[in-house]
């Protein structure tokens, strides 16, 4: 009860701070639109490649963009922690009886909420330009949930790295270095069977690809619920690991002060 209330208030705090930055709100709302339409236009002819199955490229791309957005927006979550540490807010919270888990969990919750909203925009836009979601609302819900799950993993990692390094520049470097390759070493933008074999191999171990596979399968025809279950399972395990990492990073931070 207390733990939940503390988590809620930490999350509210971050959400409120973000909503008070009009530029952030505008960018977060426009970014999904740009990605979907830009990638959609750029790779439109992909649908003509022999071996490309399924409908239009936009229809194929939508789950990929949801996944990309999740990774890229969650990666920055740790910035809030760095700011809290530098400003002294973190120390104030640590000398209070706040439930320790609430700090990471609250910021992860904020990140998941942002992802859900952005994903809903992507899906809405995709529908508007003619994409179809074969499993209706249920399929879309699974897609968005998978995006949020992937986001939770990266948000926890970002928080862990943030408290360990306490440097904005380091976090920025790591996030940019990690997210782009992970996105391109996956089937987010390109059908798996059309990927070069080494990328296909690397993608097997890539959580971004797991999310893309599960989300796409839920959205498209010929849904493979077994595949979805296994990928969601992998992601859930990875979430546990990354949450454990964030907790340990936190303990290391506390030992260093």
């Amino acid at each position, binding site marked *: 009860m207390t733990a939940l209330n503390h988590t809620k*208030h930490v999350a509210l*705090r971050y959400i409120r701070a973000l909503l008070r930055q009009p530029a952030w709100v505008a960018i977060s709302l426009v970014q999904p639109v740009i990605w979907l339409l830009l990638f959609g236009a750029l790779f439109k002819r992909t649908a003509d490649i022999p071996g490309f199955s399924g409908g239009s490229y936009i229809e194929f791309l939508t789950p990929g963009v949801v996944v990309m957005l999740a990774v890229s927006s969650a990666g920055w979550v740790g910035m809030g922690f760095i700011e809290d540490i530098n400003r002294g807010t973190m120390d104030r919270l640590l*000398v209070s009886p706040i439930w320790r888990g609430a700090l990471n969990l609250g910021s992860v919750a904020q990140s998941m909420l942002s992802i859900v909203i952005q994903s809903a925009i992507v899906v809405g836009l995709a529908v508007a330009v003619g994409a179809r979601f074969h499993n209706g609302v249920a399929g879309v819900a699974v897609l968005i949930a998978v995006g949020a799950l992937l986001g939770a993993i990266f948000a926890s990692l970002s928080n862990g790295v943030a408290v360990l390094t306490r440097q904005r520049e380091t976090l920025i470097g790591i996030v940019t270095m990690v997210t782009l390759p992970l996105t391109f070493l996956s089937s987010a933008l390109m059908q798996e069977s059309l990927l070069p074999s080494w990328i296909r191999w690397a993608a097997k171990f890539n959580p971004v690809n797991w999310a893309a596979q599960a989300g796409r399968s839920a959205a498209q025809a010929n849904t493979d619920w077994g595949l979805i279950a296994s990928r969601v399972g992998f992601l859930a395990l990875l979430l546990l690991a990354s949450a454990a990492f964030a907790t340990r990073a936190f303990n290391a931070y*506390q030992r260093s*002060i």
Partner: protein
Amino acid sequence: MEAIEASQLSKTYKGGVRALDGLSLEVEAGTIFGLLGPNGAGKSTTVKILTTLSRADSGEARVAGLDVVRDAQRVRRSIGVVGQKPGLDGDATGRENLEMQAEIYGIRGAKRRERVDELLERLGLAEAADRLGKTYSGGMQRRLDVALGLVHRPKVLFLDEPTTGLDPEVRAGLWQEIERLARDEEMTILLTTHYLEEADRLAARLAIVDRGRVVAQGSPDQLKSELRGDTVQVELVESTNGDAVAALHRLPGLSGLSVDGRVLRARAENGAAAVPTVLAALEENGLHVAAATIARPSLDDVYLRHAGRSFEQADGDNRKEAA
């Protein structure tokens, strides 16, 4: 009853910086206790350990009767902390800051509203309550920090350099507030400062800290009276070599002679009686005096005696070490 007891606290940071070296202190409940020392003396580390933020390598500490390691969570419920860095959230309003703090301590609903309004009123933030923390002036931010530390009516309040960086007027206002808190709320307050003046004004008892240890402890008056006598300070027209010291050395009733450029300092049992003989002895040796003053002992003198260097010098030394 002792509200704070620390015994033999030691802590060495990574990289070998020895922050605490067997620091012990006791603070009686309901009093203001000052921890006075230059930058880098170990004051903040002591506060971090007593407030459960950091752990000592060895030694023990109890706050409000609770062990800071074994009973950390209960200690956190009993203490309020105003850190050196502003702890407020600049992206939230003053009211929102206080509301979240109240929730952390389980103060909810109508009680929360009441307590938040009360604190805003009391610290003069009622009008600014719905403005973002980052728009506050330095003094207002500090007052909001104090309010955050008071939300749950702590038994023991820690103020780590509460007035550093504030202009004199704001500082005086905060001093009044701190005095009022100790009086009205029967709170125990541990205050760290590197302003001698602040410790002198606020603290009923104080500990002088140098290089991670307590070098002297007592009430400001006690510490000053231990020094006995007055400080006689003479400013010469020209700077002097050893002549002046040699001239004054033989005078009875003078001790602790020191020279710093044109300034001579000595302690005398009775300053008024000593000045004429000091002046005569100097003139006799051809040393012309520009000014002479007699002062009651200050905490600076106390510090000089116990730490073996003047306060300003220690502050400077430690800054250099830290750099």
